[in-house]
């Protein structure tokens, strides 16, 4: 990839040391391909943006037991194109507020991918981990290294590396913090 010098370069001010969460460990909820945002949070609940209320209906049309049974730290593992459909940021908000610590998928739809980094839901792309993980397995995840360990099956996988800029975004504390530093004149 050749990189031109943009007129307004995408650069981060000195990272302040807000580190992405490491040491994630949790039980797996397994989902199939093409889980759309209407299944993550149905549009009938979008008349609010309250995280707690959204969490109560998270994954409701896919697995009605999810919101009642999910435990803090649990991990969603899904097949390709997770989060396809609408741009609603309510989807990653509902997942995060339900206590899920991380989403691992074979691939993510692009708006969901962007939204997750912007609002701070850790996500990783790793087809190998998806193929050999079952519901109920215990995973331990090092987000910074992209390392996924299936504790139940004693296997380790490596996620697709997160682009440098996205890592910096997370380290800065999300997009809004990045904006605050890059555009001090706006405040």
């Amino acid at each position, binding site marked *: 990839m050749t990189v*031109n*010098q943009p007129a307004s370069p995408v650069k981060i001010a000195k990272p302040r040391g807000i580190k992405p969460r490491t040491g994630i460990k949790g039980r797996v909820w397994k989902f199939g391909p093409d889980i759309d945002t*209407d*299944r993550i949070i149905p549009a009938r609940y979008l008349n*609010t943006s309250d995280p707690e209320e959204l969490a109560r209906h998270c994954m409701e049309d896919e697995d009605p037991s999810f919101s009642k049974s999910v435990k803090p730290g649990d991990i969603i593992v899904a097949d390709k194109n997770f989060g396809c*459909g609408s741009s609603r*940021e309510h989807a990653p908000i509902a997942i995060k507020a339900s206590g899920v610590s991380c989403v691992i998928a074979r691939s993510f739809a692009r*708006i969901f991918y962007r*939204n997750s980094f912007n609002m701070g839901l850790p996500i990783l792309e790793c087809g190998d981990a998806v193929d050999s993980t079952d519901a109920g397995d215990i995973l331990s995840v090092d987000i910074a290294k992209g390392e996924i360990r299936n504790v139940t099956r004693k296997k380790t996988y490596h996620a697709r590396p997160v682009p440098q800029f996205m890592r910096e975004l997370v380290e800065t504390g999300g997009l809004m913090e990045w904006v605050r530093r890059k555009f001090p004149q706006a*405040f």
Partner: protein
Amino acid sequence: MTITEKILARGAGLKEVLPGELINARVDIALGNDITAPIAISEFRRIGAKKVFDRRKVVLVPDHFTPNKDIKSATQCKVLREFAMEQKLTHYYEGGDVGVEHALLPEKGVVVPGDVVVGADSHTCTYGALGAFSTGVGSTDLAAAMITGELWFKVPESMKFVYYGRLNRWVSGKDLILYAIGDVGVDGALYRAMEFAGEAVRKLSMDSRLAMCNMAIEAGGKSGIIEPDAVTKEYVKRRAERPFRFYSSDPDAGYVEVREYDCRKIEPQVACPHLPENTRNVTDVGEVRIDQVVIGSCTNGRIEDLKVAAMVLKGKHVAPNLRLIIIPATPDIYREAMEKGYFDIFLKAGAVISPPTCGPCLGGHMGVLAPGERAVSTTNRNFVGRMGDVTSEVYLANPAVAAASAVKGRVAHPDEVCGL
């Protein structure tokens, strides 16, 4: 460079950009609606921002759950209204001025060819029909764009879809895009810019082109785009509120993939539940009884869509116990349909005519489905539970197929109702 790369290069102030490159681009329009803007406004305030970067370029359109369907929706709209007044936004619409955002903005000339547009709504890709780079983002991205007037992008790879030959009767832009989604799948164009070209696309009306680019997201696309031409010029010349610029792809532009289709083989398409990629020829769908038909939305709520629906419904009545809901997408379309006599035809056919709203498309209001019910809809998504109960089903089609299906009470080809 492709048209997409040229527009992004202009936005970033660069001579050239390459697929995969990260750039910061100026945005010409940043858009939000009653579902996504409240979170953006709350982020805007949380971080301590005082003013939007340009009050003429931040656009708020409360269209999803309006006219306000309940107290919570009314409260979300109030957040938009107060923000619009506080920031003195020039493009805020409500009441008799509001329409479905992606029909309203092109109609009012708010988005123009050559623009870089971001909107906190996935169907923001619609404006590619004008020859703009336009993509859906989330609420935090919208907040960043409202404050700074720019946003970071990864320059997408471009994927070309070339349509040859003449269109069959009843086939529109909706069918061409459904056909492509059926071919490549719901993630077949993931992260890519979908460029629609070929003689058949050149002959499409602007309404059909808007319907086509609208559904690029349903193939996972970052954007959809059509090179502007005489049709574009005719459409924008009396609407554009800013100067515009036509870009086109170079003959040696790089595409990651090219798909070619012979339009003579494309019949009206139906996307069966529960993914837009489950497409079939309407004649291959079989006997599917339906309870409701919706004609409207940012995909197919424009005047040409209502015209073809009126053509099919003229002198007919909908099947017993079937609800036909027609939703003109904007106030101007509403008025034009009324003046042209379409409303007479619709009302005599037993239809309900709704004010402009996204409403039932996302199961909001104005036509939500009960358990086990089925609908044919001219909207863009047929996901599980999209229009109502989790056991209901949505079949996506063009307005002619939807109108014919309303008359027959089952998924039907327009020829069954209109003859040849």
